[in-house]
């Protein structure tokens, strides 16, 4: 499949009105990578505004529930480094997402970083894909509470900025400063 046939299947950031004081995070990952554990950690964090978490195995999202679905503010592509299928799944899903999500509204999450021996997704492949999309990668694990909390906090911070809850900070600003930092 070289071209996405149906434009309506593509996930777009600006096709719905945002809810007041609510942001929605979409977690995309194969079965068994720990989407729901991560979602629980994200929801468990106490915040000023409310965060919703939606999970899916792959894009495109089913069109049946299109009307009841809120606007997706942030997309997390979850890759289990010990599971090749999870990476392929993400690669397929990337076809059904608008490129505007890659401007600070998406991130890759690489899980089971510590399992060096059983790793089958090469980091170079993952980083080249992330570089192509201009998306940051969060490395972490869900084995302990502390690990999943760290990951959840990182995702929340990025979502906060992506949804515009932080005054005077926008994804573009983050991007610009990041590139400046990289040049140093």
């Amino acid at each position, binding site marked *: 499949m*070289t*071209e*996405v046939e149906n*434009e309506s299947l*593509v996930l*777009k950031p*600006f*096709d719905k*009105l*945002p*809810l*007041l*004081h*609510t942001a929605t995070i979409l977690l995309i990952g194969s079965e068994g990578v720990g989407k729901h554990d991560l979602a629980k950690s994200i929801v468990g964090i106490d915040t000023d*505004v409310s965060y919703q978490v939606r999970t899916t195995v792959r894009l495109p999202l089913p069109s049946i529930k299109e009307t009841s679905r809120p606007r997706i503010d942030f997309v997390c592509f979850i890759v289990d480094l010990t599971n090749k299928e999870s990476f392929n799944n993400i*690669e397929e899903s*990337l*076809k059904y*997402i*608008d*490129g*505007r999500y*890659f*401007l600070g509204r998406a991130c890759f999450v690489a899980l089971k970083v510590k399992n060096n021996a059983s790793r089958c997704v090469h980091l170079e492949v993952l*980083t*080249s*894909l992330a*570089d*192509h*999309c*201009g998306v940051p990668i969060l490395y972490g694990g869900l084995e302990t509470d502390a690990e999943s909390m760290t990951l959840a906090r990182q995702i929340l911070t990025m979502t906060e900025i992506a*949804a*515009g*809850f932080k*005054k005077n900070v*926008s994804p*573009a*600003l983050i*991007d*610009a400063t990041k590139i400046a930092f990289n040049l140093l």
Partner: protein
Amino acid sequence: MASSGESDIVAKTYAKMEEVEETFGELEKASVPTITVIGALGEEDASISELSPKLLTARFKRIKAELNIVENSAVPIVSDDEDVQFEIFTKELEKDILELQETYSFVCGQNKDIDNMIKKEEDILDQNKCVSEMLQNRIQSPEEENARVPDRKKEEIYQKIQNGESYLKEVVKKLGSFVDKHFPLPSQEVFSEQMNKLRSADRKLKLRDMISLKQILESLMNKCVDEPSDPYIAIDHRFWPPYIELLLRCQIALRHPDNKDRIKLAPFYL
């Protein structure tokens, strides 16, 4: 965005929401085309590791738009009303004071910590100084002792040697006088009597040729000290046989295991 607006005044919020909805309607009408980044993957295989050019243009557009907003939006000004200004400034001042107080208490705590640490470090320094002093003393004292000890030891050893020599002289003198007194050479009569028992060929010996017990002991002892590897001396007719017998019986002297004419001093001193 509507969600970022202040919600203290409900009406204002509603107005803002309406505004947002209007803008959104415009956005829908404009029907922005989707940017597919991965969709045409087959064509862009070569540059997969680089940022997609489509994304770059999108990013450029977005930054331009944000810049536009920042440049054109009015700087929020505080209202001219004196009461409002007073209120705002007092609030800000109170907040500042609170923060400063917190900072002050924090700094105080840190000061205390640092003081404690300095005290601890000083204690440790004192201890280390004591230890180093002790160690230095120890290093110095052996040198002095080393310088003194050999002399003292030498003197001690000399003293011991002298004592031993004088004791040896005394003992040898006593032994000599004792042996002279109690084990003299036999008298002429006894000697001739003994000679008569021998065959005529063996009667060449004379009393004055005989060796006294004192001389025997002397030669035994000298041989034993001078040649520890071969301490045996040969005996012949000049040795008075009863004395040889006496030495052997009392185990003062021992015969050579192979040669009955040779004896040595028993190694009782070992």
